[in-house]
């Protein structure tokens, strides 16, 4: 039953899951869940920009995500509106702009449903190269900035006083996040990417005693979710991306038993 497209989907899904999970831990630790969703929502606009300028779509996605991050940093300098309000505005404006740009582009050049909800079963060899090449780079960079990023996430001022360039480290984190979104878009779609970042990390939390344990456990959870979700999708003929998210939701629900056990001990 293991046909070529299933194997490719599995490889791509597990590859992305392992790369996204450690970054997802930082999203949970830094309370940036909504930021992850905003970056993901801007993906469609990135695709449209890439198509309009005839450049690689991945580059379009990364460029728009970075522009949005910079815009957010700029807007945070005012003090009347909180960050989650700004993100709520940016996320939906970015999505609306993406939908309009997609409709303006000629028919057939943009598979809207594919981008919104993912099409993991249509993964090509080229996609796999991107995922494994890009994924290896993201993973290596994540490991490289791990310690300073953790110090900045724990207490930014203390990290700066200890000589850590917090601004650069946070910028590098946003870049890694944008890269991950660009890679993961094809799999679960821009509306569901944030779940691939957040749910594995949240599931891993009650089982971890150190940040590193949480990253490793979340990667295992994410890979397991991809395998179970794809299996369910093939068996029950349900859409693949949403099935992966539901599989992760089941794993998260099971982890709650451990959360409450830890809380009551």
């Amino acid at each position, binding site marked *: 039953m293991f046909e070529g497209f299933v194997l490719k989907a599995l490889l791509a899904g597990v590859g992305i899951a392992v790369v996204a999970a450690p970054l997802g831990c930082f999203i*949970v*630790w830094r*309370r940036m869940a909504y930021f992850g969703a905003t970056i993901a929502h801007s993906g469609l606009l990135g695709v449209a920009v890439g198509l309009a300028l005839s450049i690689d779509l991945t580059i379009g996605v990364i460029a728009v995500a970075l522009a949005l991050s910079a815009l957010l940093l700029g807007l945070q300098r005012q003090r009347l509106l909180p960050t989650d309000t700004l993100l709520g505005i940016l996320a939906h404006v970015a999505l609306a702009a993406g939908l309009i740009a997609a409709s303006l582009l000629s028919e057939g050049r943009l598979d809207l449903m594919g981008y919104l909800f993912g099409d993991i079963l249509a993964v090509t060899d080229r996609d796999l190269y991107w995922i494994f090449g890009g994924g290896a780079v993201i993973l290596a960079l994540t490991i490289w900035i791990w*310690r*300073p990023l*953790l*110090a900045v*996430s*724990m*207490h930014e*001022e*203390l*990290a*700066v*006083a*200890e000589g*850590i360039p917090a601004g650069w480290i946070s910028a590098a984190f946003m870049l890694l996040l944008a890269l991950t979104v660009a890679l993961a878009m094809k799999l679960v779609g821009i509306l569901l990417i944030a779940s691939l970042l957040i749910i594995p990390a949240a599931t891993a*939390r009650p089982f*971890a*005693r*150190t*940040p590193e*344990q*949480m990253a490793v456990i979340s990667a295992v959870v994410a890979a397991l979710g991809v395998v179970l979700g794809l299996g369910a999708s093939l068996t029950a003929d349900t859409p693949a991306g949403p099935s992966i998210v539901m599989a992760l939701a089941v794993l998260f629900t099971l982890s709650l038993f451990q959360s409450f056990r830890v809380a009551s001990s």
Partner: protein
Amino acid sequence: MAVEASKAESLISARGVSLSRNGRRLLDHVDLDVNSGEIVTLIGPNGAGKTTLVRVLLGLIPPDEGEIITAKGLKIGYLPQRFERDATIPLTVSRFLTLSSSASNGEIGEVLSEVGASSLADAQVANLSGGEFQRVALAKTLMGAPSLLVLDEPVQNVDYAGEAELYRLIGEIRRRRGCGILLVSHDLHIVLGESDRVICLNGHVCCSGVPESVAQHPEYMRLFGPSAAEAYAVYAHHHDHVHGLSGAVSEAEHDEAAG
């Protein structure tokens, strides 16, 4: 103490530091020195600019005027004022101590035993009591053997008995390591006993000197009220009784009050 002071190496100095934010003068020509082996306590009411001065000293904010002079290769152990713990990040005490740089298990065990927290090495940081966490946070400042400790309100969320114990511990660290310590506090009577010099800040330096002279200085009484001075007198007596060796301050130094 005077002999010690002449041998002591200057670790960090502020010279004429001024800083304004949003049209408010937060720091006004502040001078401050911390030498090796001495505890300098910065006191002042809320909003006096104590934490702002600490940030300038640490190089987190450049001053509008004046300069910060640090000893060559100075390594600072910093305990920030608001060190909020977050159960979201799983963290054992050992891992917490190595957040910013790696260290041997030997050093981790050493700093933990120094603050009397050896049994907590594998505990989750989020599960520590207020007093336990402040000890562990103090241990973190000792990682990498710094020559200057900057402790901003190190007795937060600690009960009264715990406060006295923490200050005793800080005094012990100074004696054992010979490092300089800059201590920030808004509560005075417990702090003053271990301090060599007290600097009373309210935007500008109101008064400074040995603890007794500051406690009786008119500016100090104006800021904190006469009852604060009495409270200190009561405490100093108590302290001399318990820690005679370290707490005794000679008569001569009572007159050294600087304006």
